[in-house]
Structure formats: C-alpha cells, structure tokens
C-alpha cells in the first residue's frame, strides 16, 4: 500500500494528473463548441424567420400602397416593391428603413386612417399590415437576442484561442427601424366585440 502511494507521488502521479487535466480541458472545449454550435444554429434559424417576416411585410405594404392616393401611395409602392424579394435574399437594412419611413409618412394622419378604415376591405388590409409589422418586431427581437448570446460566446478568450468558431462569420444584429405608425396602433373593439 505504502509502496503504491509512493509510486503515485512520482512519475506515475504526474502522468495520471496530466491525462486527467487533458481530459477535463478536452471536455470543456467540446462543451463550449457544442454550445456555440447551438447558438449559431439559433442565429441562422431566427435570421431566416426575420427575412420571411420582412418579405411578408413588404408584400402587404405593396398591396396597401394601391389603396393610397399619390404621392404617399407612390412612395410606399416604390419602397415596398424594392423589399419584396426572394425570402432568402439578404436583409437590406437601408431598404427596410426606407420602407418604415414611407409607412410612417403614408399613415401620418389619423383622420385619413379613419377614412381608409371606413371601407371594410381596406380596414382588413391595414390590420394585416399591423400584424405583419408586429411579427417583424418579434422576429427581430428574437434574432438579435440570439446574436447577442452568440457574440458573447465568440468573445470569450478560450473560444478565440481554441478557434472554436472555425471560419464562421461573427453574427451581426439587424438594426432597422421597425416601429409602427401611431395611427395604426391597436384600438379596443368598439362594443365589447370579439377581436
């Protein structure tokens, strides 16, 4: 027994400890890599979702623009048609901001919105536009949250030193104006109706 302990103290002990340490380090690195992998996956999925939502908003905005008088209608039509694109095309932040501005301009006047809503079909179209806008907001929130987590991991010293991210690009947040025109904001249904 004493003999065995003595030997552990010596060379064997050092070897054993080194092997253990390597195993722990290896496990930790692979654990970090798995987490990073998952975060990258989340970033990709949420980005694709955001792109789908943006394309949808543009399509509805284009349809709405046909109901508006020029020049606001024309401006909206131009801005929206530029953003109607294949769902997997990259997001153009400048283009989306232009669309947001065109929407704000087109619906700056509450009275005009009330007039538009007088026609039930147009009212429905406006509801759809608001819904599409809300869904853009959600998708962007979720995407940017995923990006924030991924960036945090990528900045870790261990992750950089061990090159755990490989050649994957640093994920970037999507910074666009996704605010909705005040005049389109949700209104309580007039008489206790079901929305």
């Amino acid at each position, binding site marked *: 027994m004493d003999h065995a302990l003595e030997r552990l103290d010596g060379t064997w002990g050092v070897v054993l400890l080194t092997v253990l340490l390597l195993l722990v380090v*290896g*496990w930790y690195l*692979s*654990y970090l*890599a*798995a*987490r990073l992998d*998952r*975060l990258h*996956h*989340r970033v990709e*999925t*949420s980005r*694709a*979702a955001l792109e*789908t*939502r943006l394309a949808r908003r543009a399509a509805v905005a284009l349809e709405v623009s046909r109901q508006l008088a020029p020049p606001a209608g024309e401006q909206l039509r131009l801005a929206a048609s530029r953003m109607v694109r294949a769902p997997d095309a990259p997001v153009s932040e400048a283009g989306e901001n232009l669309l947001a501005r065109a929407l704000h301009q087109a619906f700056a006047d509450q009275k005009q919105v009330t007039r538009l809503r007088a026609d039930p079909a147009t009212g429905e179209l406006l509801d759809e536009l608001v*819904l599409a806008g*809300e*869904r853009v*907001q*959600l*998708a962007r*929130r*979720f995407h*940017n*949250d*995923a990006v*924030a*987590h991924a960036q*945090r991991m990528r900045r870790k010293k261990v992750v950089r030193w061990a090159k755990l991210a490989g050649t994957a690009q640093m994920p970037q947040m999507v910074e666009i104006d996704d605010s909705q025109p005040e005049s389109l904001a*949700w209104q*309580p*249904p007039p008489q*206790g109706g*079901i*929305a």
Partner: protein
Amino acid sequence: MSDVRPLRIGMVSPYSFHVPGGVQFHIRDVAEHLLGMGHHVSVLAPSDDDTELPSYIESAGRAVPLPYNGSVARISFGPVASSRVKRWLAENDFDVLHVHEPSSPSLSMLAMWAATGPIVATFHTSNPRSRAMSAAYPLLRPGFEKLSARIAVSEDARRTVVDHLGGDAVVIPNGVFVDRFAAASPRAQWQGTTERPTLAFLGRLDEPRKGLQVLTAALPEVLRAHPGVRLLVLGRGDAEEALAVLRDEPAAREAIELLGPLDDDAKASLLRSVDAYVGPHTGGESFGIVLVEAMSAGAPVIASDLGAFRRVLDDGELGLLTRTGDAPALAEAVRAVLDDPAAARARAQRAAVGVRRYDWSRVAAQILDVYDTVTLGADKVGEDPRLGLLARWRPKVS
C-alpha cells in the same frame, strides 16, 4: 384573427395546480384558450396524485413546498421529475415548448435543460437584483441560451429579465376573460347605496404585500366622511394582524365584512357590485391582474402607485393612484371616489374599454405569434443530446 397553423404545444408549470396561484391560472387560461382555437396543448405540472385535474394537464408527480420569492411554492425538482419530463417530451412530439418561470429550480428548468428546438419562456416575477441570482447565473446561462424567445408579463418583469439574465424579452401581458367579468351579474347584498357604499379588497389577508393593513388603517378616516361605508374583503388567511390597528375603532371594525375565499363567479359578481375596488398593495406585483379584473367588471379602481399598477391604469387615466403604503393618502382617494361617483363611473367606463387589450382573444393571439415566429423553419422539439465529448462525435449536419 389568427392565421397560425395548428401547433402541438407543450407547456410546463413550475407550480402545482393543487394550490391556486397567478402563474397556474395564467397557464390554465392560455391552455384552454389555445385548445379552443384548435391547437394541441399538453401541460406538465407537479401535482399530488389525488388531485382532480383537467385532461390536458399531465402530472409530473409529487410537489414539495419550497419558500420562493416571499411566499411558498410547491415544486418538483430532481432525477425522478427529470425523467418524467423527458418521457413527456418523447411521447408528445411538440412543435414548441413553453416553460414558465424557468429561473427557479423547477420542472420548467428541467424541461429547458432536457429539450432542444423552439423553446419559449415566460417570466412572471419582478424582483430587484438579488445576489443569489447573480451568483447562480453563470450556471444557468447555458440553459437560457437555448430559449428561442423570452416573454415577460409586464415591463417590470422584463426589467428583471434584462437585469438578471441579460438579453431582452418581449412584453405580453397576462390575459383576462374580460367578458366573464363584464357579464357577471351583480348581487344585491354587495351592491352599495348612497347611504351605504361598498368597497372591495381581494387578496391574502395575512400577506403584507397585499396591503390589507394599509386599507384598514385608512378606514376610520373614510368613515368620518361616509359613515355607512362597507368594506367587503375577499381572500383566505388570517386577518388578525391587519385588523389589529382597529382595536380602538369599533365602528371601522364593524364596517369590515370578511367573505373568506370565493369562487371565480362570485369574485366577478363582487367586482360587478361594488362602488370601488381598492388595491393597496405594497409591492411584489409585477402585473396587477386583479386590477385588470376589477376594470373588466366596471368597478372604479383606487390603487397604490406601484410601477405595474401605474401602467395598467395608464398613469391614473383609468383609475386613481395613491402613494404606496400611505394610509391617509389612500383614505383621501377613497373619499374622492365616493364624493363624486359620476367622475368615478366615467373613469371606470374608460377603463372597461382600455382593458380590452388584456383580453385573452388578443393576448393569446400575441403568444401564438411568438410560437409561429420561433417555429418558422425550425425543427420540432427534441431531446437535448448531452453536451460534451459524446455530442461532438455525432456526424455533423448542415
């Protein structure tokens, strides 16, 4: 309104349905609303075997009492609960998993750990930054990284998420079946008259954060202006402490009627009947569902100026706000409402319209939008392969 395809939704409650509580009611209501819309919903919750549960609730076994956030919660946590969670996930093939309050050790946390794919979490509580949370966070971070979407039930709950956990959350309020309250029938015995107006208080009697002691302290002053006032108190617990301040005020003591705990219908009727609802809470409220219920029933509201209440009442547009914990100020506000019932009614009418934004028809649609967004192009909910060496050896997809 909703164009979301039918989804298979798994929801996890941290607390047992054996005990009533805000989180459980929220889960029950949202589950029932979504079921009514044609979605598949299964709720996993701790429960004692002898409790009768609706068919969509699955029992995850016994719950143990654990003090949490100032009150006692009954939760399940441990290897047995963990394997139950895994079995439930495997059996159900969910499109989306929705865990509630996953930052406390609970079934929700276990489910968050066990699953991959689209996971949504709702955070209900608001509490100031705590040391324990800050210390625990590095351990919890990997779990929270898996959440595709985070929902907070109020701006205050969102602040808590941002401060404690980093990142962001979308605010989707608690829901109320507004029409259930709006259509409840008043009961004559609770309706006030000009001579004898009625006030309502709802909440645990012996939980200081519900503020009954503030209201009882304000009562003598109210009675000096309106000697006929009756205070109807609904809730369980021991009223001894809250009534202690009235030892030398027999008139005030007599103005208080303890109704004990009542069922949902009676609660709605009470709120429909009274001349004002008083919410003297002193803290711990992240949303203020009871205010929303009172507003739905058309009762004029007087409440403390807690952040959550301020927001629900649109900064006093929809009800009177008084300084939190300040009995004289509360007495004055109650008097103001009783002095000018017409103004109070007008405010209550505005409130009854504004409160529609909390109706389940709208709130559930917002929750569905979250589900729809996180499931867009995503895989189904699956079991999380163990992180680490073994996971690395699997062939890499994508």
